[in-house]
């Protein structure tokens, strides 16, 4: 019994430590297609792009088409919350390009002189109301979110989507009484798709990406808070030529087209 108790105690302690350090990041490196011979790119090598979680769909597509246009180039992607990524970069994670969901997090990197050049704004995003497909609380406007019988979920003011919600609250004088302040926009969306919440404030692009699982309700007050997405090559990049080319690709016509299709607006 003593052995097993000790074992379990040890196991529990190590579990606790592991649980405390759990982080959420995912990376993927789509296979490049070698069949494309249309371009004559001289670039070869591989880069790692750190991008905000809300860019997952668009940047996965863009990386694949960038690889297709440059057959000798591999693009590895890592998606997480912008502030998580900034922390990883300042702690020395090997990234070549960083695309942030807000200028505040990019500023942290420029302040620390970790970017190779001035960041370029490549997209903007605004908030939209997400409701379950049957819209059980009949939400139709931003003001409806403040009603006592509407279970509204928003981001905490500490994260960009929450800061944007707060900005709109201040501008409109409507005070929301959320039942939960989540730490990421995906958590807000999750509470709405599961039907736990009657409404949530997420980005236009999140609703577009969620497809039929939620219904989006646009509101004019959303223009009070526009999130700007900057991108930059990082100073410690060993493949700065490819990194610069990728940044140009995102800010160029192809990139802008893909982003617009996903619901992003131009900066």
């Amino acid at each position, binding site marked *: 019994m*003593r052995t*097993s108790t000790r074992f379990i105690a040890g196991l529990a302690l190590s579990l606790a430590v592991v*649980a405390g350090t759990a982080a959420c990041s995912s990376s993927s490196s789509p296979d490049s297609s070698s069949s494309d011979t249309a371009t004559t790119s001289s670039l070869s090598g591989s880069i790692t792009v750190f991008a905000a979680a809300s860019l997952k769909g668009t940047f996965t597509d863009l990386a694949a088409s960038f690889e297709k246009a440059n057959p000798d180039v591999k693009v590895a992607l890592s998606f997480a919350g912008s502030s998580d990524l900034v922390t990883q970069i300042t702690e020395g994670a090997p990234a070549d390009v960083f695309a942030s969901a807000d200028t505040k997090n990019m500023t942290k990197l420029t302040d620390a002189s970790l970017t190779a050049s001035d960041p370029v704004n490549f997209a903007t995003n605004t908030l939209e109301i997400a409701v379950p497909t049957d819209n059980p609380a009949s939400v139709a406007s931003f003001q409806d979110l403040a009603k006592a019988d509407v279970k509204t979920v928003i981001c905490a003011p*500490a994260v960009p989507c929450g800061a944007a919600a707060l900005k709109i609250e201040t501008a409109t004088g409507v005070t929301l009484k959320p039942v939960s302040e989540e730490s990421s926009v995906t958590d807000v969306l999750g509470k709405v798709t599961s039907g736990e919440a009657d409404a949530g404030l997420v980005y236009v692009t999140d609703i577009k990406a969620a497809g039929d699982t939620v219904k989006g309700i646009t509101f004019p007050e959303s223009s009070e808070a526009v999130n700007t997405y900057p991108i930059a090559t990082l100073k410690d990049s060993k493949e700065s030529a490819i990194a610069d080319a990728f940044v140009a690709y995102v800010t160029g016509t192809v990139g802008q087209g893909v982003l617009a299709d996903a619901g992003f607006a131009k900066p």
Partner: protein
Amino acid sequence: MTRATRRYSAVPRWVIVLAALGACFTLLPLVAMATRVNWGDFGALITSESSVDALLLSLRTSVSATVLCVVFGVPMALVLARTSFPGQRVLRALVLLPLVLPPVIGGIALLATFGRRGLLGHTFEVLGIQIAFSTTAVVIAQTFVALPFLVVSLEGALRVAGTRYEAVASTLGARPTTVLRRITLPLVLPALLSGAVLSFARALGEFGATLTFAGSLQGVTRTLPLEIYLQRETDPDAAVALSLVLVVVAVLVVGLTLRTGSVDAGLARRPRLAVVTPARETHSAADGS
């Protein structure tokens, strides 16, 4: 008695080296975190309103979850250890599943059960019980992940303790509930205590299931781990300071239990059985060894 004349090591040296490496792996990150603490502002960081709210909420919900774990975990351990029925092995494996399940999956499963659109959600709504985004949801999530810790440690202890004393007591006419109260539970009390402490510690650290299932609102559902996760976004100093608080609370809880000797006192307690058993049962019970 005579063999202890010379000091000997039961463990080969290379095992000790590996053990030391393992210990470093576990402890070094904690030390590294402690070096990041901004001691100048430490007091202010951990006594901010949101921090205190989160700590109190964590303690309150973890205590509730531990009570629930004892209420349901002790009967579960007894049934698993003392009865046999078809499918018992499978059931044991399933009951212990939350131990190895990623907490976020636990959260999704709880949503499917207790959520507004879950299996039991409608029933609760009819009864007027609101679980979504309430402190109840936090306690449910913590109980779900912590329960196996109590069951697994208590069941093991019950098996090791054996059924001899129980059998003797019942041949002397003690009813099952009397046997449970006066023989079985006193025998495994140390394991029950350490199991309860492990459950408490697990509940205190619960993050994934709470985040998925309960939401995050100051004073209602934002427990200390959720507060740390959120603070990290804007104020890494506060996140590190609060992490240290959580580590200290966890160390205190585990340390106090080991210190009171509840884990090691198992064998020493046995003679006391003679005292707590009724006079007519004393003889047989005390002769058991």
